[in-house]
């Protein structure tokens, strides 16, 4: 582990020193990060569609109606906001699962480490 750039002169809220990472932990981290990035890309594509593609084709959709509104107006006034809210909720739920999976993987790798060390001895 390389030395941190700051000395520990900050006693309150010190700059974090990343803990050492074993190979198994690094693998778990990489998996977690891949899930995260893929999830973000997928959700942001949906968000992009609602925000930018719908207004782009709004004039073609103008005569489509939804609950008394013209569809593009409804999408801008309420639909998009509800979609955004849904996207965030999906992200929160799936990431909490990913968090739990990561914790399990880390715990497993820690016991593996322990077993390895015990076997060495």
């Amino acid at each position: 582990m390389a030395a941190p750039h700051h000395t520990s002169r900050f006693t309150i809220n010190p700059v974090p020193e990343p803990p050492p990472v074993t190979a198994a932990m690094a693998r778990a981290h990489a998996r977690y990060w891949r899930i995260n990035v893929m999830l973000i890309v997928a959700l942001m594509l949906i968000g992009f569609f609602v925000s930018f593609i719908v207004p782009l084709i709004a004039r073609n959709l103008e005569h489509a109606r939804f609950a008394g509104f013209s569809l593009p107006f409804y999408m801008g006034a309420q639909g998009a906001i509800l979609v955004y809210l849904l996207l965030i909720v999906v992200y929160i739920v799936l990431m909490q699962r990913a968090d739990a999976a990561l914790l399990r993987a880390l715990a497993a790798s820690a016991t593996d480490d322990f077993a390895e060390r015990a076997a060495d001895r």
Partner: protein
Amino acid sequence: MKLAHRLIRSYSLYTIGFLIFIYLLWRIEAANGPGTWIGYVFLFLPIAVYAVIGLLSRTSDLVEYYVAGRRVPSAFNGMATAADWLSAASFIGLAGTLYATGYDGLAYMMGWTGGYCLVAFLLAPYVRKLARYTIPDFLGTRFSSNAVRGLAALSAILCSFVYLVAQIQGVGLIATRFIGVDFAIGIFCGLAGILVCSFLGGMRAVTWTQVAQYIILIVAFLIPVSMIAHKDGLGWVPQLNYGRLMERVESLERQVRDAPSEQSVRDDYRMRAALIQTQIDSLPQSYIDEKGRLTVQLDDLRRHNGPLREIADLERRIARFPRDPATAQIVWAQQRDEMMQRAAPPVPMHEPFPAVNEEERRLHLRNFLSLLLCLSLGTASLPHILTRYNTTTSVASARRSVGWTLFFVALFYLTVPVLAVLIKYEILSNLVGHRFSDLPQWVMQWRHVEPYLLSIADVNGDGIVRWSEIQMQPDMVVLAAPEIAGLPYVMSGLIAAGALAAALSTADGLLLTIANALSHDVYYHMVDPEASSQKRVTISKILLLGVALFASYVASLNTGNILFLVGAAFSLAASSLFPVLVLGVFWKRTTRLGAVAGMVAGLVVCIWYIVSTYPFFTQLTGFVGPRWFGIEPISSGVFGVPAGFLVTVLVSLVDRKPDAYTRALVDYIRHP
């Protein structure tokens, strides 16, 4: 969990108390009739409550002062962030913008909510993981660099300050309009209101007052809208079914567009515009003629002992008359354009991108999309919003908190278009087509008190109010909504209290962001790293006072153009902070040098575009630059953000690779 339960109990009691308070005032008004005292009660009682909360939350502990002890439950942080977010512009302006511009106004609705997706996906969890005090602190730690820290502090202060001035002006306006004090005194009251919340307790006090302010502002918005909707037969939850009303509004809009009487009004405007045009064409002779005519008329009146009022009126017109033919050219051209605008047929609310030809329409669409993009990126990079997620208990709780924030913000934003449609319906059905002889009470009052907000004149002389004869400033839509719909005066007071809460809560968050960037990042990290924590809190409080006074001074100058500057603050924040915040976490290869270059590039491009295209600055400097792709200066972030990304990436690639510590740090940030 115990803290959360305690909070739920006290804020429920508080909400019930507030509702009972409204009910009592309403009964008193029903018994004794309206009076200005209602305005006073609604403005000062909430401020007193905020002051008590601020006083109870006083602290000199560093962690409490900067991040409220990092133990705010996610839902409460969501409420506080929503109050932090909903500014005077959102509360007062947004419904009016939708009322006036229809589909165009939706760029604000979508941009200001969509930005929270970016906050949840790209920023908040990582900001919380590193657990710093401020956003410049986050960037400075990630890049282990005081240069990055300083630049980030500079842009955070720049965009927050512009925004803060607008909030204080908003407070001044509300105070002037509802209790009739002088603008400067109104600003002073606002200043006092802001300081009682933040001065003693920093982030801790601001958090708990913001929760209280959110409750007031949401109640103040939802109740009047529900009452108006109920009156129009939509039931108490109009957010779900106002489509029915929208249909009626659309058919009324069609009538207004096609009615011959409306067209005659518009023809009249067109004629006036042509008249002004002939005057402009014959400058400078017409200038001399017109001025001479006014002077002769005045002399004439004076000689014949004409009515004093007419003389005073004429004197005022002469005083306001353009200084010289060159100014006359500009002023008259403005008047002509305004007339031409009035002469244009009204645009239905739901129609996207109205334009005379295809090319104009494409330009319109391009500007709509770029404004939308700037607003969402700006939302995601405004430092006063992002720091709020530092106060949550964990990374997962920060993520949940963004969800709560959007939920509470959405409660407000889903209601905004309802109000816009309701008011448009009220005007179209209860004002248009009625006789001038029996104008409703509110028209008389607003026209008398605020002539620049509302003017109605019988242009074509048929004695009946036509849609095109009403000139209503969008800003009055929310403030006057209860009167327009004929609700009791208590509701007007309630709306004012809500607007005040929105302005105060945002001002608090901004003020704290500026003061903390100065005290923590500039003073502590760059000037005196040996300072004791006691000294740091004291310095921070002194800076807070100084910034508040300075911002009030700038606000009292009443420079105008503030609405534009608020929009520009989003572009500034997005251009300077968004690329580094995102790349710093998602691309390990980002280097210190890249971050510095990217922030400078984003800022420079953004400021350059604003200064070279915005009329206020071009008149000041005499330099007019080209408009790239016809984009409005308010959306300059469309150029600043890509420039920031591009330069950060290129410079980072040329630079040496980050060392092992930095790579480990980024890994550390990425995991909960």
